């Protein structure tokens, strides 16, 4: 999957003034890769990811996924992309992990035995197979982060957008998930764009890395 971002701008109105977050941002990702996105708190990492997820509209600029325009073909982008964001709150707390994953799978057209099989396989791989029957409200934040990875991978996306990759994950879980991402890159050509604060992880596992500073990505 090719991702190309050209001259992207985004600002927010806050307390009467306009605050620029992303200014003339460029990024080209060709061929399947793992891209590590870094940057201090408040630098615009989540904003960029949400723009790519079609949850925020850019002010100007152009984003294309395999040539398809992000703004015009929002539904297509959502179909081929998977998101790992805000894991702890974005699940139904009163439902079990399994019920949650069944629902979100259904939203994406993965249902029935297909959904069950993939849920089971991914959950086992990430070490939360034993928690599928637990209510989300009772799960630890690490378990929820892993559940968010399962949810994002159920429909076998060709792009994976991950906010706060290592959030609440112990080392073993991090390396299991990293292994999975590498495997998906090799076998399915999945591109993963991962926000991380771990320079070491970026150095050891990412094919490319960039840091957001002053609203742009510096490599």
């Amino acid at each position, binding site marked *: 999957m090719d991702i190309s971002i050209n001259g992207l701008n985004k600002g927010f109105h806050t307390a009467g003034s306009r605050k620029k977050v992303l200014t003339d941002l460029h990024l080209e990702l060709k061929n399947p890769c793992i891209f590590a996105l870094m940057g201090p708190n408040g630098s615009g990492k989540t904003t960029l990811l949400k723009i790519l997820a079609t*949850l*925020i*509209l850019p002010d100007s600029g152009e984003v294309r996924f395999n040539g398809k325009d992000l703004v015009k073909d929002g539904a297509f982008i959502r179909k081929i992309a998977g998101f790992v964001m*805000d894991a702890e709150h974005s699940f139904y707390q009163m439902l079990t992990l399994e*019920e949650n994953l069944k*629902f979100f799978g259904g939203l994406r057209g993965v249902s029935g035995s297909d959904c069950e099989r993939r849920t089971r396989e991914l959950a086992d791989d990430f070490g939360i197979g034993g928690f599928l029957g637990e209510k989300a409200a009772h799960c630890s934040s690490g378990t929820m982060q892993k559940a968010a990875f399962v949810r994002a991978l159920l429909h076998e996306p060709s792009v994976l957008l991950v906010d706060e990759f290592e959030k609440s994950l112990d080392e073993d879980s991090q390396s299991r998930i990293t292994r999975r991402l590498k495997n998906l890159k090799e076998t399915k050509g999945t591109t993963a764009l991962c926000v991380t604060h771990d320079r070491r992880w970026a150095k050891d596992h990412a094919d490319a890395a960039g840091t957001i500073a002053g609203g742009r990505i510096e490599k």
Partner: protein
Amino acid sequence: MNLLLAFLFRDLAVEKSYRFNLFVKLLAIFSQVAIFYFLSRYIEKPEYFAFVLVGLVFSSFFQFWLNVFAENIRQEQFWGTLEALFSAPAEHVYVILSSSFGKFVFNIIGMATYVVLGAVVFGMVFRLNAALFLLILLLNVAAFAGLGLVSAGFITYFKRGDPASWFVALLVDLLSGVYFPVSVFPEKIRRVSEFLPTTAALDIWRNSLLGTGRVGFGDVALQALWGALLMAAGLVSINAAIRGVKKKGDLGNY
């Protein structure tokens, strides 16, 4: 279809976790029906029971569509799951419409409960014109859901309920002949009342369920026109609201 089933199973699972909900709702309907049955006996007007029962069903149907989308969006904002819903590949409007499917099924069960209670327990007689009833149901879904989408647009963008919809619901209960025929109003209020499309709609409901009077082509055409206009307004407003909130960047915020 997948989308509808996903929402239905989710809502069933949620209902299950709040076990008493459905039962309490059915109990409320039962006592409401009983109250009006005995009221109609007390005032010695047995035909009033059928009249008001259809009014109650209509009112619950109207309020359901007026509120369901806004309530759903409010709920998802509160739970923090709205962004996750909007990550679904379908157009957002389909997701919002589908998200009401589970509640729609519960609402149908509620409406059927009124009818079954009325007929079986309290011996009310229906003279059903099924084709006409289904037609008016469909046209009114378009109209009332259109209003509901306007209200949903409001809550999506402003993060709080619109002040108009509870007032509209009140107005309909008061002026559209839900509890009593609008002919009892003084001249001026009656004019207002007859001007409201909900009054004409409820007339058609009574005609098609109880076999009272006749329904002309013009009456149905008016409902169709009104349905088309309100649905268009609803779609325009929800789409504008979604666009606006994505610009503001706070889609998921509560």
